[in-house]
């Protein structure tokens, strides 16, 4: 999670403790959900029918600092107690170590809104599942500084990985590395042929390291370029999601900003969740003109405020008003959904559309 963002969001839920992070350009989101069974004791706190469970965020460095020198900690620490004390504004981490020694860390936290990216693995047209080791061995061929990589599907069910080269780069000075993985290296392959996505490798490496260490297979859900790619790890007591924005595949950027967020897009209905997805899809196609074959030019896109329900507008404008992605980052930010009534309908259990982080720092 520290590879993604500088702040760690802690959200206790009935189904477990969720730890999340988002990057500054909002193009990467990760969440780790630890089921109650993962813990010796899990008490998310009592809530009334109208009150939500308390959640907060802490500085990533402060939290990690508690667990530094992990090798010696593994030998000396017996158990760790995590307490969230809203009234004292402290997150308490108490480590019980050998010789009866107790280390208590009282970390300051900030209250926060729920952090949740909009994504739905069921809606992805392609899915790959591989043991982490296969992907680790594939990724090792790319230099550690490589920013973006393109994953593609080729003939015969082969999967390719290629470093992404910016069009501004001089062809004679760039090195292209491409490797192909056979279908049988994967545990399952269900992809639409000729599809490809480009995403940030650096942010993916963090998850890959974790997957390898925990020996869990990694599933990659992806769709069209521009739609987020979702990496998942599943275990009996842990659910991990990493959502990365992908480069979209537009031919030109000659559209003026005013044509975005055009008025003819469908207004969200009661079944808001569904329409949010189709709304996003509609926004992409209308802005890009025809979806031709991938062009050599990939252009910077920033999310535009959408014309939608007035009550949502403020939050979305807030997001649109923020300079989205800085020029050197070519990924659009993931759409972070607006507030939805809890228990709202969704096409699948993985659909989670929740409140946007509205503490104004973006």
């Amino acid at each position: 999670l520290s590879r993604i963002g500088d702040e760690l969001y802690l959200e206790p839920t009935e189904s477990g403790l969720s730890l999340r992070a988002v990057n500054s350009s909002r193009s990467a989101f990760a969440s780790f959900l630890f089921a109650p069974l993962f813990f010796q004791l899990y008490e998310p706190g009592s809530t009334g029918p109208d009150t939500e469970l308390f959640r907060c965020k802490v500085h990533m460095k402060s939290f990690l600092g508690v667990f530094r020198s992990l090798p010696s900690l593994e030998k000396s620490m017996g158990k760790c107690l995590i307490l969230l004390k809203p009234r004292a504004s402290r997150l308490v981490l108490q480590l019980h170590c050998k010789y009866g020694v107790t280390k208590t860390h009282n970390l300051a936290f900030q209250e926060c809104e729920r952090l949740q990216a909009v994504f739905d693995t069921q809606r992805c047209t392609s899915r790959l599942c591989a043991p982490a080791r296969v992907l680790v061995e594939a990724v090792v061929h790319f230099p550690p500084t490589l920013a973006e990589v393109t994953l593609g599907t080729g003939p015969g069910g082969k999967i390719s990985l290629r470093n992404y080269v910016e069009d501004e780069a001089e062809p004679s000075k760039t090195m292209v590395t491409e490797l192909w993985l056979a279908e049988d290296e994967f545990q399952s392959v269900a992809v639409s042929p000729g599809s490809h996505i480009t995403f940030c490798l650096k942010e993916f490496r963090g998850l890959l390291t974790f997957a390898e260490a925990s020996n869990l297979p990694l599933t990659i859900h992806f769709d069209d370029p521009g739609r987020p790619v979702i990496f998942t790890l599943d275990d009996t007591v842990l659910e991990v999601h990493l959502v990365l924005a992908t480069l979209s595949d537009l031919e030109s950027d000659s559209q003026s900003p005013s044509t975005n967020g055009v008025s003819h897009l469908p207004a969200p209905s009661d079944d808001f969740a569904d329409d949010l997805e189709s709304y996003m899809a509609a926004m992409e196609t209308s802005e890009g003109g025809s979806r031709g074959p991938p062009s050599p030019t990939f252009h910077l896109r920033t999310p535009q405020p959408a014309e939608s329900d007035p009550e949502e507008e403020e939050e979305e404008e807030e997001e649109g008003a923020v300079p989205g992605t800085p020029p050197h980052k070519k990924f659009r930010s993931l759409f972070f959904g607006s507030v939805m009534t809890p228990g709202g309908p969704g096409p699948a259990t993985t659909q989670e559309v929740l409140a946007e982080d509205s503490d104004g720092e973006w």
Partner: protein
Amino acid sequence: MPFSAQPPASGERYALSASLDNARHLFSLLRAVHFQDHATCFATASGLRVTVEDAKCIQANAFIQAEIFQEFVVQEESVVFRISLSVLLDCLTIFGTSSLPGTSTALRMCYRGYGYPLMLFLEEGGVVTVCKINTQEPDELLDFDFCSTKVVNKIILQSEGLREAFAELDMSSEVLQITMSPDKPYFRLSTFGNAGSAHLDYPRDSDLMEAFHCNQTQTNRYKISLLKPSTKALALSSKVSIRTDAQGFLSLQYMIRNEDGQICFVEYYCCPDENITEAGL
């Protein structure tokens, strides 16, 4: 290792002359008090004491008894001089800081007396280096007047339990707070840094606790930057005694055993930080 080049003939009278087969032990002891450039050396018939001070608040002493040396002769009642500890340490490791097994640096120290430089003869593998380090007027040193009758609280801990704690102290905290009490939390080290506060508790019945004599609950704060250098002494030691007196002065005494099983001591004395108020403890 025998000397192939002898120091000047013994016709000359030296205030201090000492020989040590392996300079490494001396080096690591002196390094454990090296938080200032200069040190004051005292030599008496019982041995050598090297003192370093800072900010009129903290004093560290390294004691090397005469028995540790192969030869230790002090001709005057007491010998005192101020010297650059940094230079002394560099000289002691003139043949390099990493020690190959089977090799050791032999040392001979000679001091003619007031106004003369300290002479070091170092030999390793047949190669001899002669160093002359200038000495200065000794400074007046603090006297913490810490005697056992004034001690309010005392504990002796196995160093193993504290090493990691000291190495990982939150340096963004200005102070290290030490609580000693006959009741819970018994012995607690606290820091108040940017991330928040951290407390390290050692119960009185811990296996690490060799002795626990706390009569009164005391909480004192010390500037963390002054105490941090004591981590080196802690790393070398097998046991540490922690004592406080009625004014909150802190005494840390480290028992250090060398390869030959001989014991030396390093101690740190520190004044409590008066600027910090005791609110909200």
